[in-house]
């Protein structure tokens, strides 16, 4: 048998997993953020289910701190592929539950979005939520199953994970529980970009280089200046040619200096990159060694 390209193998695995979700669950959802990983998921879902409709809606938890480009992209995509899009707002959760909004210079709603996510799961009784997390992102994720069972509080228990063998995915759950499903678990950041290139997938413009006014933080990160960030006179403001490696909240996602105008440029840059994706762009993982593990135990994606 001839050896297939590894992207074919990764694609086949992801499509297989998406179809398993369709076959095993009554009310699945695809969590869509407008970022490159969930954009790839939508592309894979088109391959898995067309000419039929998706057996799940797209769901976005909007923190209110999202980049406009990502939101516009999200709305256009949902319209273009004619699939249902459900949006729920962290802002509404904060008001309804009288929660404390993120504080500090770069107020993060990263922890708060877990409340909205759990609420939307309850509202629609979703029994499976498909997400674009990858195991190469973070070492707690490296241990998570592709079908990851969460209890009714959305909690992940790393010590009680089901064994996952061959291509057999056990999605049996009790009422109230749900499963988080990660079809591109085995992809790396570079794999995602190689796939975007091969499949000619369109992306929000902020992934490519552009001039942007940023605050240069003490540890050298370039943070977008926007209405949510508390400006101070001592801020070092610089205008640089930057792009985003991940598209998270404006308040806690850093830009990276870049000359990448095309997907090819990005791939070339990544091959030379010495800093990991999350390390380069996320302020929230720097808090502690087990930050991601703790957030996942609390219901985070």
């Amino acid at each position, binding site marked *: 048998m001839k050896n297939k390209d590894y992207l074919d193998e990764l694609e086949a695995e992801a499509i297989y997993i998406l179809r398993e979700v369709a076959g095993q669950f009554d009310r699945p959802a695809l969590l869509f953020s407008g970022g490159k990983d969930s954009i790839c998921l939508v592309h894979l879902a088109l391959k898995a289910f067309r000419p039929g409709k998706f057996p799940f809606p797209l769901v976005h938890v909007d923190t209110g701190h999202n980049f406009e480009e990502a939101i516009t992209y999200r709305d256009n995509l949902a319209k273009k592929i004619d699939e249902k899009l459900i949006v729920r707002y962290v802002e509404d959760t904060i008001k309804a539950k009288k929660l404390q909004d993120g504080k500090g210079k770069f107020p993060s709603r990263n922890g708060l979005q877990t409340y909205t996510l759990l609420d939307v799961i309850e509202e629609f009784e979703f029994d499976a939520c498909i997400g674009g997390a990858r195991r190469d992102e973070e070492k707690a994720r490296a241990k998570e199953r592709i079908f990851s069972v969460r209890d009714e509080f959305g909690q992940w228990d790393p010590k009680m994970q089901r*064994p996952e063998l061959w291509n057999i995915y056990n999605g049996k759950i009790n009422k109230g529980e749900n499963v988080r499903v990660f079809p591109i678990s085995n992809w790396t950041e570079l794999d995602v970009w190689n796939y975007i290139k091969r499949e000619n997938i369109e992306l929000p413009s902020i992934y490519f280089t552009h001039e942007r006014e940023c605050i240069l933080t003490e540890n050298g990160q370039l943070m977008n200046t926007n209405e949510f960030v508390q400006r101070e006179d001592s801020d070092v403001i610089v205008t640089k040619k930057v792009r985003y490696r991940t598209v998270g909240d404006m308040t806690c996602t850093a830009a990276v200096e870049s000359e990448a105008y095309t997907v090819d440029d990005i791939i070339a840059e990544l091959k030379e990159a010495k800093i990991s994706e999350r390390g380069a762009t996320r302020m929230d993982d720097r808090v502690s060694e087990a930050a991601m593990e703790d957030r996942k135990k609390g219901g985070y994606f």
Partner: protein
Amino acid sequence: MDLLRFFTAGNVDDGKSTLIGRLLYDSNSISTDIIETLTRQSKTTGVNTDIDLALLTDGLRAEREQGITIDVAYKYFSTDKRKFIIADTPGHIQYTRNMFTGASNANLAIILVDARNGITDQTKRHTIISSILGIPHVLVCINKMDLVDYSEEKYTQIENEYLTFAKQLNLKDIAFIPASALAGDNVVTKSDNMTWYKGKPLLEFLETVEIAEAKQTDVSRFQVQYVIRPQTDELHDYRGFAGRVVSGTYKKGQKVTVLPSGIETVIDKIEVNQQEVDVAETNTPVVLHLKDDVDISRGNSIVPSEHLPKTEKEVTATICWMDNAAYIPGQKILLQQNSFRTKAVVKEVISKIDIHSFKALDSDGAMKLNDICKVLIKTAEPISFDSYLDNRNSGSFILINENTNNTIAAGTID
């Protein structure tokens, strides 16, 4: 560029995590921010070097605290030649189930042997599991050669001892490499300390080993995952069976049988990403259309009429018990084979396999965590299967506890 999935078996004591760390580190697969974190961490918990490479793979807090690997961790790296997925599995006997899990998808096993200790019970256990799971290539990495003065004699002695042991097993391809993960000998670059070794260093070996699909036959197998029925005006009669070509190839016009019903029909159309194709090869996600309007649902098999799998309500299999709770005789379970699921019951525990000698021992009917047993399973619906040694996909299954929904065992069909 192709993809090699391999797993590593061994303990931190054998230098397994250090070996993986070394592969990633020396192939420039670790980013500087992660090295910084590691350096900081190594100062507090590290045991041996400036950077404790083992900390790279131990992702959970409990693992870092106890200095052991508990769960399977997946790591990724690539070179110009290949992309690699490593399943890093724990070595201790109490984690046999995790090793079983990590090994299930692998095409190659790296079994670590501490040159000072030679072949141990653990080496035998890892080798036997590799044999049960039909891993196509086994690479025995004789590590810590620096601690035995890079002795060729010691290496040859271990090699011979291993081959004698492995003779009774079902391993097709065994290779040996003398190395020191800590010192970097024969990991990425060839060692000057062992000029007597004429083979390749580990990374080069991994880059060039020919990837054999795990004992795959060319017999075509396909299981329905999901039925696509758009039910729109223009696609009113569209009814496509979505799934993956598990093995072999499927052709337009091919005579096929639907199982378990046994109804014969012909493949009318094959679609890949909405494009019609004449032939679909192994591992391709497809949508099959059949000539006749046959009643087919998820979990049914569509197979070539001249090469039918067995379809029965009883299977004999080797299973690894994976649940913390021991087996309760008569316990109601579900059997899942890819997308097919049925109620089932273990009718008989035939024997228990001694994990260090591969001998079949008399069974007292009990099965507890990490036990490997030969069993007879009775299913409510007939299951279509091949022997695991012929087909890793149609010959494997898991057992699910109907109450807790946990995966309690994994099996390979005789």
